């Protein structure tokens, strides 16, 4: 059945890839927003996950590896009425783009960021990502990963990210629901999506996740930062999915004096205003 956001672009993902259910969830979440396709911009970097925007009929900015967030920030600044969604991989957002991840949580632009977290670099054929478990062997780490894993949710909670959630790709309904809440949240909203890589990650499989994952208990208070932080660090024994943390903060667009109506593309440059800038530099003796 064709949906409003379907495209005819040829798909390059492996059969059984976790990107397929994520794509379904993204389209469902966009339908929930009630927005028209011209009001939505999907932004991504490079990688198999970053190809997702090509399969959604909306505005697309498929930029450089690691650089989705700076572009998304500026698109939102240029036109705050656009719904800006970043959808890209763990290597893209947490690795190459780690600096932008940190600083855009600080800025708090009203963008939703969906990270396809499969703990592996798939498109380059099987190297570890920042979230790979120690000991995991990749094509460039034959004796196993030495570095500790990057904890995206703990980092987000520590930085005061206003919406921090984790989803499991195979649970499309729950993922779409979390994505919808992330888009509705006014500020930087992170959804880290556990995504099996059927080709290169033989450890973190659908079966493995099935055993490990549990839903955040209904009585969890997402505004309790300490509890959220503790939940965000759970991984070895079991892995919570759902909304871990919420914090009410003004969004970047609300506080940046240069951002707002009209959008930047519609702002005029009156010649008289330029002349005034010149005039005020003329030395006139009082």
């Amino acid at each position, binding site marked *: 059945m064709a949906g409003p956001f379907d495209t005819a672009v040829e798909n390059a993902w492996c059969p059984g890839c976790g990107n397929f259910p994520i794509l379904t969830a993204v389209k469902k979440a966009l339908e929930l927003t009630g927005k028209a396709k011209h009001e939505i911009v999907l932004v991504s970097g490079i990688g198999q996950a970053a190809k997702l925007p090509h399969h959604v009929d909306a505005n697309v900015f498929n930029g*450089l590896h690691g650089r989705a967030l700076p572009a998304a920030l500026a698109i939102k600044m240029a036109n705050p009425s656009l719904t800006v969604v970043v959808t890209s991989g763990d290597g893209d957002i947490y690795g190459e783009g780690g600096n932008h991840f940190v600083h855009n949580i600080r800025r708090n632009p009203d963008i939703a960021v969906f990270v396809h977290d499969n703990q592996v670099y798939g498109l380059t054929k099987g190297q570890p990502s920042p979230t790979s478990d120690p000991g995991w062997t990749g094509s460039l780490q034959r004796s196993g990963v030495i570095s500790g894993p990057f904890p995206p949710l703990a980092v987000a909670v520590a930085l005061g990210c206003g919406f921090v959630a984790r989803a499991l790709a195979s649970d499309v309904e729950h993922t779409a629901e979390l994505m919808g809440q992330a888009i509705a949240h006014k500020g930087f909203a992170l959804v880290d999506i556990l995504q099996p890589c059927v080709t290169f990650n033989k450890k973190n499989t659908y079966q493995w996740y099935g055993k490990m994952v549990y839903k955040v208990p209904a009585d969890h208070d997402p505004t309790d930062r300490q509890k959220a932080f503790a939940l965000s660090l759970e991984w070895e024994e079991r892995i919570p999915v759902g909304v871990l943390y919420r914090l009410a903060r003004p969004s970047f667009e609300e506080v940046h004096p240069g951002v707002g109506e009209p959008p930047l593309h519609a702002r005029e440059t009156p010649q008289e205003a330029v002349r005034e800038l010149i005039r005020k530099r003329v030395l006139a003796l009082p």
Partner: protein
Amino acid sequence: MEVDINIRITGGAGQGVHTVGGLISRMAVAAGHHFHATQDYMSRIRGGRNSYSIRVMDVPVRAGRAAADILLALDPDHLPHFLPDVELSGLVLADPVQGGSSAGATTAPLKELAVSAGSPILGNMVGTGIVAHALGVPLDTVDRLLALEFRGDFLEKNRKAVRLGAGWAEGRIPGGFRLPRAEFRPRLILAGNEALALGAVAGGCKFAAGYPMTPGSSILLGLSADGPPLGLAFEQAEDEIAALNMAIGASYAGARAMVATSGGGFALMVEALSLAGMMETPVVIALGMRPGPATGMPTRTGQEDLSFALSAGHGEFPRLVLAPGSVEEAYGLAFHAMELAEAYQVPCILLTDQYLGDTVVDVDPEALEVLPVRRRIVRGAGVPRNGEGRYLRYAVTPDGISPMAVPGEPGVTVVADSDEHGEDGHLTEDHGIRLRMVEKRLRKGEGLAAETLPPLIAGPPDGEAALIGFGSTKGPVAEAREILAREGFAVAAVHLRQMWPFPSGAMEGILSRYGTALTVENNRTGQLARLIRAETGREVGGTVSRCDGLPFTPEGLAKEVRERLWPDRSIRR
């Protein structure tokens, strides 16, 4: 030209060198004259050995001079460093050195009078009073200028210090530096980087981002100060990579966008430069060059990044590289860059450097042309659709320029990709589409080339020699040429303000009309000479190079050219 007085203020960072320099520059304008001020400063927050040189003339001034007529040393310990660059007839003013020698200086009690005026930090204002007296600038003029800068109690203390300085100078300071009275005309006081930012704002820049790096930071300062009243949104980026990716994002969303940086920051932007080429997003990059490699000399001047700017970015795409040579050109070419970047949907690099960026001059207010901004974005019924009713961001056209719509346009989606893509913007691995897109992008370069700004020639249309420079060397080269012309040498000054597309035809004509040509470059390897060879197939006769971190001076340049080209010929006096 009757008046030509070079005044140098020296001292540590924090001693008020800049304030005095600005005041004396304004005194010159108030007296109906013109000035050219340059700065030389060290990379630190306090202390060091900095100088501010103001050359005052009765005609507009285009370059600084090495030798000072008046040296005001706010820190007497700096005298040994600055004394060699003082004219024999020059006036040197400094406090007595405790237990040392002030040989060569008129000892002036700057600190002592400053304390009487209310604070030891007012030594700079005591010095200002002495210089004002030497130049014959009336004290009420200085009072009025001070009122533009200071208020209240602090204003009164400054005025008192100036009066004490002027009073002390009475009868002690020779009158050989008096500025003749001339009619006061309102003049614009403007620095190179400030003018560049102003030109970009006048050119409709609505988004700017950057990470501070000398000498690009003062462009960011200008954009963040002058931009917001005209609707510009500014953001300090977490790094230069973010800065250019942000500007490209804003440009995709329809804003004219700009970044400013120096060589090291530009190096970080290079991947995004290529993205702008591929996505065909207009963007302007101001590259404030400084001596490298690596961190190099952060606060000094150089032109070492010409080849880098021309070739930066993986893959092949058209670009525009402009090199303003004066404060007026910085304004005009920044406007031009904004217009052409959008017209051709290409990245444009504006080459500047510390020398031009920090140069302050007085400018005729009418010299800055205020032109209407011509937006090229398609909207509403103007958005073209294909047979299926879809807008194609990368529609193949005869001139390679695809109509640019922006996200948010009702009924339209805009797809932009860093991968090779079809007309619809979606990624493709089809070799036939690839070929058509390569050709489409490069066709824009042909249109861009047809609009190339030709070199500017000063002096005879043909003759013995041509001195060819680009960017900030314009003033020193022009004045060196005048010195040589007065000495009887038939020499022309050629100034390149556009480096790419290169004005090959015009340059071939120039090279055929002069006996020989030398390039004048603030680099060691002759990057302009190499560019001329690559683009015209002709060799120049050599390169006058300066790469010590300082700008060319007219007299130094004239001397070197004379020795290189006419070692045996006597000078006609």
